[in-house]
């Protein structure tokens, strides 16, 4: 889970071009400047390609917060 947090944080750093970005479990899209629908698409795409997974159906659009996304990834990533 620690490693997953680091990997996910790196994705956010890359997508938002911010080396100093710190990811927190309770974060939602409202907490991150620039996280609009297009950034969301880019984020999901980058997560899919870095973690080698495919979101199914509405998973692509809806996550309550980072904690839920992390739990999903922990379940899905082999």
């Amino acid at each position, binding site marked *: 889970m620690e490693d997953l947090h680091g990997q996910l944080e790196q994705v956010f750093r*890359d*997508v938002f*071009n911010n*080396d100093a970005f710190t990811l927190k479990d309770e974060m939602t899209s409202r907490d991150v400047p620039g996280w609009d*629908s*297009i950034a969301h*698409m*880019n984020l999901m*795409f*980058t997560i899919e*390609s*870095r973690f080698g997974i*495919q*979101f199914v*159906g509405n998973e*692509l*659009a809806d996550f309550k917060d980072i904690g839920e996304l992390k739990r999903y990834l922990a379940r899905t990533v082999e």
Partner: protein
Amino acid sequence: MKQSLSNEASEAIERGDRLKTAGELDEAICAYLVAAAHVYPVPASLCLSLARAYIRTNNVAEAIRWASAVVDAGDDFSSWLSAASLIENATNWKTEKPRRRSRVAIAGSFTTLQLRAILPLAGFRHGIEFEVWETPYGQYRQELLNPQSALYQSRPDFIILAVHEGELALPFLSNDSETEVTQELDRWTNLWEAVARHSKARVIQFNFALPAEAPLGHLALRLPGSRYAMTQAVNTALGMAAQTRVDIIDCERLSALVGKERWCDPRYWHLSKQAVALSALPLLARHITAVIAANLGLSRKVLVLDLDNTLWGGVIGEDGVNGIKLGGDQAGEAFVAFHEYILHLKDKGVILAICSKNNEADAKEPFERHRETRLKLDDFAVFVANWEPKADNLVRIAETLGVGLDAIVFVDDNPVECAAIRRALPQVDVIALPSDPAYYTRTLSQYLMFEMATFTDEDAHRTEQYRARTLARRLEKSVSSLDELWESLEMTATIEPFNEFNLPRVAQLIGKTNQFNLTTRRHGQAQIEAFVQNPDCIHFSLRLRDRFADHGLVALMIVLQQDSVFEIDTWLMSCRVIGRTVEDAMLAHLCAHAAQRGATTIRGLYIPTAKNQLVKDVYSKFGFSIAKEVAGEQIWHYDFAARGSIENRFIKIADQGEINGRPSRAVRAGV
């Protein structure tokens, strides 16, 4: 592109990451640079680490250089997007000097935000600064049809009709496929015509990628009325209708190239109307950039090839002409296929040259004697085989051909030679061949900057013309004076007004001529046609032939008459005939017009650019006097009434065309 990093490189990257976390940015950059020196192409993640570290140390120029290096690292969309937004956010990036600026409007039928975001990165890699604008989602038709639309107010140079298969109004099955296809074609050509009416922009139209899902299966092709067959017919018809006036992006080919199931990801289509998958966008952006670059005259012109293990297997100096691999078996056939692909490039107008470390006689022998060689000696405009550094030889090849280093692409199997050229001559594009010759042809075909906007007779005979230039250069050494040289060339020119036959070449020259170009005004097709319609405009092109070659249409002039004054709006000449007194012949011809039309003064304008220093003094050489100089721009006057005609001594005029509507052969060549 998966690469295995050497231990040194991986260790340096880890060291860099640790230093960066500790806030030691300069040291982190040093470590990253060590890693980058160990691998080519530099992986995107490393390019981005460098770019971000440079941003934080306020070195914007290096940050941008490394961000745009992401393009060479492969087509990973996430990396492209990071690099693109990094460049966009770098504050003073506009101080960089681009080769060209261009305004692009994307008129799309699907979500084009991401394409818009990454297109500038692809442009940046080739020195083009794109200013990209896009129509609101689903509005492209309205925007194109409304002359007052925001799209036209953005004054685009290019309008990209980024449309997808779902936009076709074709039924699943039809009884009257011909009518359906014609109507569909009209829907698109009507939009092209609207653009031509409302703007000077050039249209770049996507054709239609057939979807992966095929309900009719193989039957579809046998039913002319199937949507599948009709879509193919529309694609063909679009290409034929486009001819020289519109560019086509062949999305049908690109989608097949990446695989149709990868080209469109239905999840992203349903969620946010991405008709082209994000993973395919970098490839698409590179192709769009290549097509725009071709229109801007920024395509590469010359392919310089190594010999040993590039055009044949083995080393000619050691293995001899009977020992090298060329044809015969699997390994040898790969080289024959490579020859054939290179010949196709030559056929479309790419100039070929050789740059090899060899004895010249050895190097030439396979082209003269090997039974399987497809390339022959006279396919090459320049042949350099010696033991000097290749960088020096490339500079010499560029000089001999009269082209810039930024027109050259260098191909070599030896990574050391490739790295040396990248370091010494960053303007040259370098293609490093893969280790298996079977993939040589594919690697070369993945290089996009040989794209061409139009195809003219001149393109088809280009190597012949440049070979002639090389021969003429040799001849120069054997005649004692320039007068003798010019006499010995036995030059003949054909001068004629712009017409439907020469217009594509005229537009091409206006778009790309840099050196002998007095005003560098890049008139678009519509503006050129307006000149042709204008009765107060004198316009003519010149074709030159000499004892070595037909150089084709190589020079032109556009002059506007206001009462008794002729004003030279555009005067340019292809670099391959500079130094041949063509300018004398053109001014002499212009004087004949002046006499016919009662002009007394010829006004010439010189607008300096980074590349046209060459023509700074051309007016003074012919007895023009300077009338005004503002910020480097000079206005020159020639008092035709007092000084009379300008003399043309060395070029025989085959046909003067018509002067003021009357056929005239009154102006003689020579004296």
